[in-house]
């Protein structure tokens, strides 16, 4: 393990039932300034892995460290080091967009001045200026997803856990998100990104972790995945198809 590793997962096994673990001995790392794509079929264990990282599930075996800390060692520092964008927007019906951002900034101890500056910038980037004082119930699904993304980005932690962020976003929203993720990455933040849109993330992620039936079947850079898949000159989609085909 690299001493600077932001996310370190070692030998993780876990699931909803002790007798039938969903994840089997999963190990991977995310380093500073790195964007890692977590890919797999439906039910491969991507969301379960994320739930374990978020502390919503407890590992049956193995351990998870965020910036060197386990959740049970220092829960506040652990959670303060990561932000999550879920697949489906989870917003408070009784709060406006601005209040969601403010609540997040308060919880993550973001100084007020920084919050105001970030909120203003994010609202412009995601074209939400005229919706800042709208209740979340008055937003479309895509806008709700934008709020989720803006909340994560207003916090500015070391690690972003992003689950299927493109669902419901319009093309401009997808472009804004990708651009912003690149900016964060260049600023030293780490991103663990799960998506089925392989052709999009292929060009943005530094490394990939391929999960299949709860186990890692390949991981590394695009070149490393290509070597493990045994393909030449193929895109990530074809490599992935080759890797999972015939493994059921």
């Amino acid at each position, binding site marked *: 393990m690299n001493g600077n590793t932001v996310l370190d997962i070692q030998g993780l096994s876990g699931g909803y039932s002790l007798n039938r673990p969903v994840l089997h001995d999963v190990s991977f790392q995310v380093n500073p300034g790195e964007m890692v794509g977590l890919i797999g079929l439906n039910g491969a264990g991507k969301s379960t892995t994320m739930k374990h990282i978020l502390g*919503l599930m407890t590992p049956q075996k193995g351990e998870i460290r965020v910036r060197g800390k386990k959740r049970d060692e220092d*829960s*506040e*520092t652990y959670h303060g080091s990561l932000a999550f964008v879920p697949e489906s927007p989870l917003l*408070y019906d009784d709060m406006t967009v601005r209040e969601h951002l403010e*609540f997040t900034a308060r*919880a993550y*101890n973001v100084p007020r001045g920084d919050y105001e500056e970030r909120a203003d910038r994010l609202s412009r980037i995601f074209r939400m200026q005229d919706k800042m004082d709208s209740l979340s119930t008055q937003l479309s699904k895509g806008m709700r997803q934008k709020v989720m993304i803006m909340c994560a980005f207003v916090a500015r932690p070391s690690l972003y856990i992003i689950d299927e962020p493109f669902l419901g976003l319009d093309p401009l929203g997808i472009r804004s998100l990708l651009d912003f993720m690149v900016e964060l990455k260049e600023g030293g933040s780490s991103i663990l990104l799960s998506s089925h849109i392989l052709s999009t993330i292929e060009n943005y992620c530094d490394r990939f972790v391929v999960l299949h039936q709860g186990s890692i079947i390949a991981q590394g850079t695009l070149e490393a995945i290509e070597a493990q898949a045994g393909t030449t000159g193929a895109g990530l989609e074809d490599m992935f198809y080759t890797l999972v085909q015939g493994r059921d």
Partner: protein
Amino acid sequence: MDLMKLRAERRSRFWGKEVLPYLGYVLQSGVAALMLFALIVFSAWYTSLVQHIPAGLPIRWIMLVLFVPLTVNSSFRTYLAPADTVFLLPQESRMKSYFQGSWTSGVVYKLLGLALIFLISWPIYVRSDGQPKPFWLFLLVLIALKLLASYGCWKELRMVSRRATFAYRVLRYVVLALCVAAWIWQPAGRSLIFIVLLAATYTAALRLPAKHPVAWERLIAQEKVHSGRVLMVLGWFVNVPGREQRVYARKWLSWAGNNIPWKPEAAYRYLLMKSFVRSDILGIVLRVGILAAFLAWWQRGSNVGIGIYWFFVFLAGIQLSSLLRFHSESFWLHVYPIAPGSRRRNAIKLAFQIQLTFAAVTWLPLLGAGLERMGTVLMALLGGIVLCLLSRFFASRKKTEDDEDDE
């Protein structure tokens, strides 16, 4: 598909599986016993009031204030679910049979409640009013007005335009208030003619706006509100999971909570304050506060006023205890770096602060008793503060016992 049977099944599932299991806890809870005690105290006070009616009691205004809301308020339980927009949509033309039960139960139970309140208020009305209306005629008029309001409310739910829905809601309040006022103040014959003419015009006006065959989305949203309210009432006594609150935009209160200290320990209080100002609870506390202030002012010269004041401070405490259960299943509170125990502390602190403000504001009318009762009035305030402290004590004890979610 037997739509009547489907609604009946949903109804029995809601009451049988979501409400009934908690009723035992409600009966066991000390709050229920205290409410019963309050009811007995009210009965004793009311009996004494009926026997010694103060001269010049504004009985017509009291009847108006009592019966306008009771006749106007209408609602219907449809037990519709979001998935119905997919699965029941093909049955749209047959949904009349589904809604038949909603209409019947929405009207019958409210009529029974109306009749009960009328029976209770009758002794004081008949003894105070110089020219009381005949009992049966009064009751029949109230029933007819209630049916008219229910019909209007049902039509409003089907209107396409939200503006039309709002306008017709206002119209329903105005029409019913005018009818009740005419009946109370005017001679029976003249007021009946007025009521019939106004009701006919109102019924004709209801035909004008465009309506959905079934306003699916509105009915589903309404159902969410109604089931949420039932569970909210249960929540006063026991912890009920998965309660959904109705949200009111209340833009005029958007500033509330903004001055809460900017630090992670107080972040949850910020969230809670925002939720509170847009919740049903604020509306209830405000209505209870207005009623408390009015009654305390009315009885400011006697110890009954102090009893009323304390009762309402206690009642506000019960309402505010709902705050402790807000966001009990919030995903983000498990993911955000909220300090362990800060949810409990913040919820109790906020509920205490609001109850204390309530106790201070509703105490002010008692000052109208004058300087000669100043000592007693100050004792009343002290009692109110003690009630707030007791609410805080019991809330913190209860949370310690049964809530480990933020540990």
